[in-house]
């Protein structure tokens, strides 16, 4: 005897079906069908017919807002694309038509560092020019370094790949090398041949407002010529 025959006997089924012939009372049928129809009407009644159009309108509106937001974010991130970061800094500087930070005139530097100030009246700009030429130049250098560091950090954050990270670190290293190079090149080698010409260069740097560079050059001068007496600037 199989398992199926144990679970199911045709004779039992037939005998059961011969007497189990009851049907649902008609009243019950009517009641349940009317209940089903009434329930469906209340769910999809005219009172709630506005829900679908509103839902569609809301969905479309939110989608448009999202697309606009994403477009703006992409535009804002465009200057720091991976291609830009991966490009060596030296090449970027070589390709950049803008002059080196040390050679930028103060109004140009001022314009580059703070564009809204270009619309300010001239007397105020002149006052600022006379008050802090040095600080403007330093600010520009600081801004340049901050921008490079930001680019470096963004490159690391945006690209999880090791290659992008390496490119970004190379970019930052190149920036640091450039900074050191700029420090050395404030005074030429010819000028450094004698203490007097070197000191004249230091004075010139100080007059240009590059006081940090002047201090560094002065320290280098004193290290090179320990016996040199620095003239008193008041005299």
């Amino acid at each position: 005897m199989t398992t199926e025959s144990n679970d199911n006997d045709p004779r039992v089924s037939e005998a059961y079906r011969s007497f189990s012939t009851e049907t649902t009372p008609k009243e019950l049928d009517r009641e349940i069908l009317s209940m089903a129809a009434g329930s469906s009407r209340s769910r999809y009644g005219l009172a709630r017919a506005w829900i679908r159009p509103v839902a569609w309108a809301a969905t479309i509106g939110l989608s448009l807002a999202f697309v606009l937001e994403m477009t703006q974010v992409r535009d804002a991130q465009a200057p720091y694309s991976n291609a830009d970061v991966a490009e060596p800094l030296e090449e970027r500087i070589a390709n950049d038509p803008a002059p080196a930070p040390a050679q930028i005139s103060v109004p140009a530097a001022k314009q580059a560092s703070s564009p809204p100030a270009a619309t300010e009246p001239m007397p105020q700009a002149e006052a600022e020019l006379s008050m802090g030429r040095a600080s403007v130049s330093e600010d520009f250098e600081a801004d340049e370094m901050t921008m490079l560091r930001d680019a470096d950090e963004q490159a690391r954050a945006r690209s999880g790949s090791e290659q992008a990270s390496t490119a970004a670190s190379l970019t930052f290293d190149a920036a640091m090398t450039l900074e050191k190079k700029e420090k050395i090149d404030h005074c030429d080698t010819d000028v450094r041949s004698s203490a007097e010409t070197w000191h004249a260069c230091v004075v010139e740097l100080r007059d240009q407002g590059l006081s940090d560079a002047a201090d560094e050059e002065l320290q280098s001068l004193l290290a090179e010529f320990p016996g040199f007496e620095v003239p008193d600037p008041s005299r």
Partner: protein
Amino acid sequence: MAANAQSFASPMNSGAASLCSEAALAYAHAMAHTPEDSALMLRYGEGDVQAFEILYRRHNDAIYRYLLRLSGHRDSADDIFQDVWGKIIKARESYRPTAKFTTFLYRVAHNCFIDHIRRNKRHSTNTVLEPELHSDPGESLETATERSLARERLEIALTTLPEEQRDAFLLREEGGLSVDQIAAVTGCNRETAKSRLRYAVAKLRSAIDEPAERS
């Protein structure tokens, strides 16, 4: 179907074959367009009341008999029946066709019956419903009487079955559920459901065979 197969096989009866094939095609077309229970329920969830009516007409009598045999009272069966379909109607929006609709329907019915027992302690399974006697016109009086007695014995045996065994048997006979589906409906494992069904069938078989064993 066998006739259709023969007509397709015989090249001699081309006219009859074409008629049969048309009928077969029409039948196949109708069957292909007979919506499944789950699809009907989903359509009802979207507001199609006619879909519910089709679904209801498919299952109402079987569910009613299941509840009637399980409870043993017409009034109780009526109450539970309304409760079951009320729950199905309420579940129209949340319904997801994860299982066969029949399993879902009988599970609701089973749970409604359990709730009904808990609410009404007066529930008794010993009531024997009045049998509706049907006899074939060409049947002899002796055969008809024996058949009637067999039915009566079966019905009495059914009412005396333990509730779980009766439940399993009725789910098989009225719902056409498999052992796995019975297990899912009654919330037990497969082996338990199989064992209950086996015991129920064995007891009912012995009830039918009782006079023959005596002779």
